[in-house]
């Protein structure tokens, strides 16, 4: 893979280039005391000089004493916010005296006529993996999701490898980081020391190389590449959490009646935070919403969560009524059933569910508890 380096200041030019080419550039921004992803109108909006401290049920931003652009790990949001939006209109129907008017594809009102292409700046390797996992979900079956396809087509992805491990991170356990291997257009590693502030950029695609030509960059030396490599190696050694995935699928399948589920359920609020922050969770609900006159009905797709009581409702009641059943469903799906459904684990080790759980339930701890105390 061709590797180059460019100065920190050139990052702005990279963003400008993408904007000029018609991309909607999404990057990390500080808002509401968290680093979230939104459209970058100006590179000054980038969350420079911040780091995050994360542990069970805690996320705090702290000032760094340097100007690192990407000196944090992941915030509460992931890229599914754009590829699989929380609220999405699927179509609108109209009732007239003539009957029911279902839309034809020309009058499709669910989308702008030509949606902008996204450029994602700052995709963590775990999140890159999450995108490929959602690609399998939405594009890998016999029926694909046209909304996801539309939004995913033409993405320009700039991953940023992690220079530090988050307090709840375990990408090393899941084989999804801290360095991106493939699936990006450009992959950056930020190098910041007393003398230098630059990015080591790996080119993943022809398009990536083409875009990079607009930035002042030089070929990376072996030393540059080694520096970048060491940064990632250091990150591996400081992972916040660890998950033993060996035979995990069968362990979870075989322990559906383990007493641990009850214990954890007693803590779980079924608040669904974990499913909202998880970059791979894809459950959705379909709602038909009418206007007051009853003349127009919109079909909306909205994020849903297997933690809600009526998620599994059929006549007579919900199949999974207890918190125990719902927590068990989520964790078993994520770490076990997903493998049978889509060929990989559903978990990328980003740690968000641990950080954003209000009571601090830790999926790695739950898996360990069941593994170590199997009957």
């Amino acid at each position: 893979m061709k590797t180059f380096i460019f100065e920190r200041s050139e990052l702005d030019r990279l963003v400008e280039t993408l904007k000029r080419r018609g991309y909607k550039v999404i990057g990390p921004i500080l808002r509401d005391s968290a680093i979230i992803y939104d459209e970058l109108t100006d590179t000054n909006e980038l969350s420079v000089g911040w780091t995050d401290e994360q542990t069970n049920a805690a996320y705090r931003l702290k000032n760094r004493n340097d100007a690192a652009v990407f000196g944090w790990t992941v915030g509460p949001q992931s890229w599914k916010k754009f590829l699989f939006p929380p609220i999405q209109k699927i179509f609108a129907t109209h009732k007239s005296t003539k009957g029911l008017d279902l839309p034809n594809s020309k009058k499709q009102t669910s989308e702008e006529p030509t949606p902008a292409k996204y450029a994602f700046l700052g995709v963590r390797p775990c999140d890159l993996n999450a995108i490929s996992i959602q690609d399998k979900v939405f594009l890998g079956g016999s029926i694909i999701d046209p909304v996801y396809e539309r939004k995913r087509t033409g993405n320009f992805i700039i991953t940023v490898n992690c220079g530090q491990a988050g307090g709840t991170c375990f990408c090393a356990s899941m084989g999804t980081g801290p360095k991106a291997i493939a699936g990006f257009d450009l992959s950056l590693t930020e190098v910041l020391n007393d003398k230098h502030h630059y990015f080591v950029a790996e080119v993943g695609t022809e398009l990536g190389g083409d875009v990079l030509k607009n930035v002042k960059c030089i070929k990376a030396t072996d030393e540059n590449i080694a520096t970048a490599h060491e940064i990632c190696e250091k990150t591996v050694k400081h992972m916040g959490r660890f998950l033993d995935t060996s035979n995990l699928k069968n362990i979870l399948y075989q322990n559906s009646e383990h007493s641990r589920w009850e214990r954890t359920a007693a803590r779980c609020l079924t608040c669904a935070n974990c499913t909202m922050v998880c970059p791979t969770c894809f459950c959705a609900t379909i709602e038909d919403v009418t206007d007051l006159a009853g003349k127009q009905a919109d079909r909306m797709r909205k994020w849903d969560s297997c933690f809600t009581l009526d998620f599994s409702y059929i006549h007579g009641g919900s199949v999974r009524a207890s918190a125990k059943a719902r927590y068990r469903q989520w964790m078993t799906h994520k770490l076990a059933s997903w493998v049978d459904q889509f060929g990989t684990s559903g978990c990328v080790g980003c740690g968000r569910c641990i950080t954003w759980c209000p009571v601090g339930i830790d999926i790695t701890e739950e898996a360990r508890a069941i593994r170590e105390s199997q009957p």
Partner: protein
Amino acid sequence: MATDPELLSLKVDYKRNPMLPWPFQIRRVKHETEDTFTVELQPLGALEEFAFQPGQFNMVYVFGVGEIPISISGDPAKPRILVHTTRAVGTVTKAMDKMRRGDILGIRGPYGTPWPVEQAHGLDVVFVAGGIGLAPLRPALYEVVAHREQYGKVVLLYGTRTPSDVLFRQELENWRARFDLEIYVTVDRAMSGWRGNVGVVTNLISRAPFDPRNTIAFVCGPEIMMRFTAMELHKRGVDIEHIFVSMERNMKCAIGLCGHCQFGSYFVCKDGPVFQYGKIKDMLVKWEI
């Protein structure tokens, strides 16, 4: 209403948006029992017939109210008319119950795995239906009866709550009048005067005339009824790989993308609803799976 040229000239690219329903017009609404009704539908626009396999279901959309999965209960050999039989128990079905000839419903489908009727060629076929479960089995019954010579003994065991809940009475009588079908009906309780059977449908299994070593069984009804029926069939000697059940779960998209219908690692909308009993029997006895 139906002949409006605007409606008839619908040319929607349904392959591109799988969440878009196709309009169908109600030809007839028939009330079968106090809480169960049947709608007969005709496709509008460029679609002339709706082909499906027995056991499959559609997502049925009532404008502004919602969309729910309902099994197809009609004859696969008559694809010009789409038939659905359902109980009026929720918002959507109750709204459907009030609809009349000429009203429009949206249909997406057909979805799901069918009853493996071809697998039963040369074998005895046992249908065991509980309550509304007779409706998703009826298309398979039609198909077997239409090709009667390809099968061995054909038996229908049908249990429901009371005599006034018996569905498709006339059809059952017609089938019973044939010499090549065995129809047994039982109810949970009845008023004196009922000359049929009273008791659970599993009681009928031991006396039914079929050879368990050469039988395929199709079972449909409340989950608990299917569980006990499958156990009883197996006790009588039917291979668990020859017993099929039809599962039901909450569905929103019916195309394997929304996650609602998961049953273990299966998606009931695309890995089911028809499952081989042997594959799911361990999950059936687990609570809240």
